[in-house]
C-alpha cells in the first residue's frame, strides 16, 4: 500500500467536506433533531409519551445519524463519480492498488459517521433536557460499538454506492434506506416488538437493529436491550459482508 497516496486522498475528501460543511451539517442533523424535538419534546411535554422515552430515543437517534451520514458520505459521491464523467479516474490511476481507493472512502465515511454520532449527543441532549438519563459507565464498550456502527455505515455506503445507478437513487432510499430506518429499532427498543413475534424475528436481518440496540446497551443500560455479544457478532458479520460485497462491486465498476 502507498500510504502517501492514501493520505492525500483522505486530505482531498476533508477538503471537499470542509467546502460543503453547511450543507453537510443540515443534511446530517436537521432530520434527527426535528425528530428529537417532536417526539422527545412535544409528545413527551404534552403527555402522550412517558418522560422515560427521552432517554430511550437518544441512542436510536445517534444510530440513525451515524448510519445516515456514513451511507450518504460514501454512497452518494461514488454514485456520482462512477457516472459517465468518471471523476474518480484520477484516483484509480494513482500508483496503488485500486482496492485502497475504496478503503479510503470507507475510512473517510467512518470518520464522518463518528463525528456525526459524537456531535448529535450534545445537540439532542440540549433539546431534550431535563430528564435524559445517560450513563456512560462503560466508555470502552461504547467506543467499540460506536466504531463498529460507523464502519458498518461506511461499508454499507460502499456496497450501495457501487451497486446502484444514479437513476435509481430515489428507489434506493425508498426501498432500502427508509425500511431499514423504520424497522431498525431506532425509535423503539427491540423488546417492544414482543407483541409482533414474526416481525421481531424478521427485523434481525436489519443491521441498524444492532446499531441502535448496541448504543442503547452502552448509553442507557437501564432499558431492555439485545445482549452486547449478539451486537458485536452481528456488527462484525455485517461489516465483513458489506466490505466484501462493496470491494467486489467497486472492482466491477472501476475496471471494464
Amino acid at each position: 500500500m502507498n500510504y502517501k497516496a492514501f493520505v492525500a486522498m483522505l486530505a482531498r475528501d476533508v477538503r471537499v467536506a470542509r467546502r460543503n460543511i453547511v450543507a453537510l451539517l443540515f443534511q446530517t442533523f436537521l432530520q434527527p433533531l426535528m425528530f428529537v424535538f417532536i417526539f422527545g419534546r412535544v409528545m413527551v411535554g404534552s403527555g402522550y409519551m412517558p418522560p422515560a422515552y427521552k432517554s430511550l430515543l437518544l441512542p436510536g437517534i445517534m444510530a440513525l445519524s451515524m448510519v445516515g451520514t456514513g451511507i450518504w458520505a460514501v454512497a452518494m459521491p461514488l454514485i456520482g463519480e462512477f457516472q459517465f464523467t468518471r471523476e474518480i479516474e484520477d484516483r484509480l490511476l494513482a500508483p496503488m492498488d485500486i482496492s485502497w481507493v475504496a478503503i479510503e472512502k470507507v475510512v473517510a465515511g467512518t470518520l464522518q459517521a463518528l463525528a456525526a454520532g459524537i456531535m448529535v449527543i450534545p445537540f439532542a441532549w440540549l433539546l431534550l433536557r431535563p430528564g435524559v438519563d445517560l450513563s456512560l459507565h462503560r466508555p470502552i464498550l461504547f467506543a467499540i460499538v460506536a466504531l463498529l456502527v460507523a464502519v458498518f455505515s461506511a461499508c454499507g455506503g460502499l456496497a450501495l454506492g457501487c451497486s446502484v445507478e444514479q437513476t435509481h437513487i430515489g428507489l434506493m432510499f425508498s426501498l432500502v434506506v427508509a425500511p431499514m430506518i423504520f424497522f431498525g429499532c431506532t425509535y423503539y427498543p427491540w423488546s417492544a416488538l414482543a407483541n409482533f413475534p414474526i416481525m421481531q424475528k424478521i427485523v434481525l436481518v436489519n443491521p441498524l437493529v444492532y446499531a441502535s440496540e448496541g448504543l442503547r446497551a452502552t448509553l442507557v443500560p437501564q432499558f431492555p436491550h439485545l445482549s452486547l455479544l449478539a451486537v458485536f457478532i452481528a456488527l462484525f458479520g455485517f461489516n465483513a459482508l458489506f466490505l466484501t460485497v462493496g470491494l467486489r462491486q467497486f472492482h466491477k465498476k472501476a475496471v471494464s
Partner: protein
Amino acid sequence: MAAGIRTSELRKVYNTAPPLAAGAGGFSFAEKRSKGKQPKPEIVALNGISLDIRPGEIFCLLGPNGAGKSTTVGVLTTRVKPTAGQAWIGEHEVWKEQSAVKRLIGVVAQRPNLDFSLTAREILVFHGAYFGLGSHERNQRAASLLERFKLTDRADQIVRGFSGGMMQRLSIARAMMHDPQVLFLDEPSSGLDPQTRLLLWEIIREYNRSGKTVLLTTHNMEEADALCQRLAIVDHGRIIALGTPQELKSSVPGGYLVRVRFGQNSTDLMERLKILSGVREVRATENNGADLYADRGGPLVSEVANLALAANIELCDVHISEPSLENLFLHHTGRSLRE
C-alpha cells in the same frame, strides 16, 4: 529513462448487458432466469493487437470511431482488463504490476474526467500528492502548468463551470503533473479550437523532445501526419497498416485516388478504366462507382469523362484525393475514415 510500450495479441471481448427494458441494469428486481436463455451479445473490441512502440517515440493510433483505439489505451493504462494477450509499459507487465505501471504513465481520457469538487489548482496539487510529490514541488509544478496551459486566471475556481476546451487543457496538464515517462492522449484535440490545437501539438512535441514516449489516438489524419513518427491504422480491433506516415502513404498504389460514380454499371467501362495510363488499380464501389488508384489526379479526370462519353454512360460524380492517410485507410478497408 524512457519507457516503451509493447503489446502481444491483445484481445478484448465485451459482454454487454441487455438493455434495461430487458430486465437487467444496476438495480433490478426482475428475475434472472430469462437471462440464461438469451445468448449474451458479444462485442469484439480488440482482435489481436500487437504493437512495439519504442521509447521516446510519438506513436499514433488512427482509426474511425469504434475501431478499438480507446480500448487499447484502456488496457495499457490498467482501466480495461484484456480478455487475452499481454501488455508491457517499459519492463512492467500492465496487469501484474499495476502500481509500477501507473507510476510511469500519464493519461488524458477522451472525455474530461476531472474531479468536479475541486478547483483547477487543487486538481493538479492533489494529483501530485497522489504521486508522492512534496508540498513545495507540487505547488510549484501546478503553478507552472497552469501558466503554460493559460489557466492561471481561473486557477482557483471550481472546474464545473469551465468550457470544454479549458477542461481538456487541464486534463492534459494533470497528466503531465507527475512527469510520466509515457503519456497517453485519447483524441486530445477533439473539441479544441485550431489555435489551442496548435498549442497542444507544440506541447506534445516539446514533451517528446525531453525523451518521453507519447501514444495518441485520433481519427484526424492531419494530426497523425503532423505529429507522429510512426502510426498504426486500426479498424475492427485489428491493425491494418503500420509504419511512418510517409511509408504508409507511399504504400497506396499510385498515391492519388480518383473516386467516380457513373449513371449505370458497365463492366466494359471498368476494363477500359484499368488501362488508362497511370492507373494502378480500379475497384468497383457501391452505386455504380469506382475507385481509381493512380499516380496522377486531375489530368485523369478528362480521360475518364471521355471514356464515359464514348460508352454513352453519364458521369455523375468525381472526387480527387491527393496522397493521404485517408486514401490509405480507404484502400485497406473500402470505407472512408469519416464515414
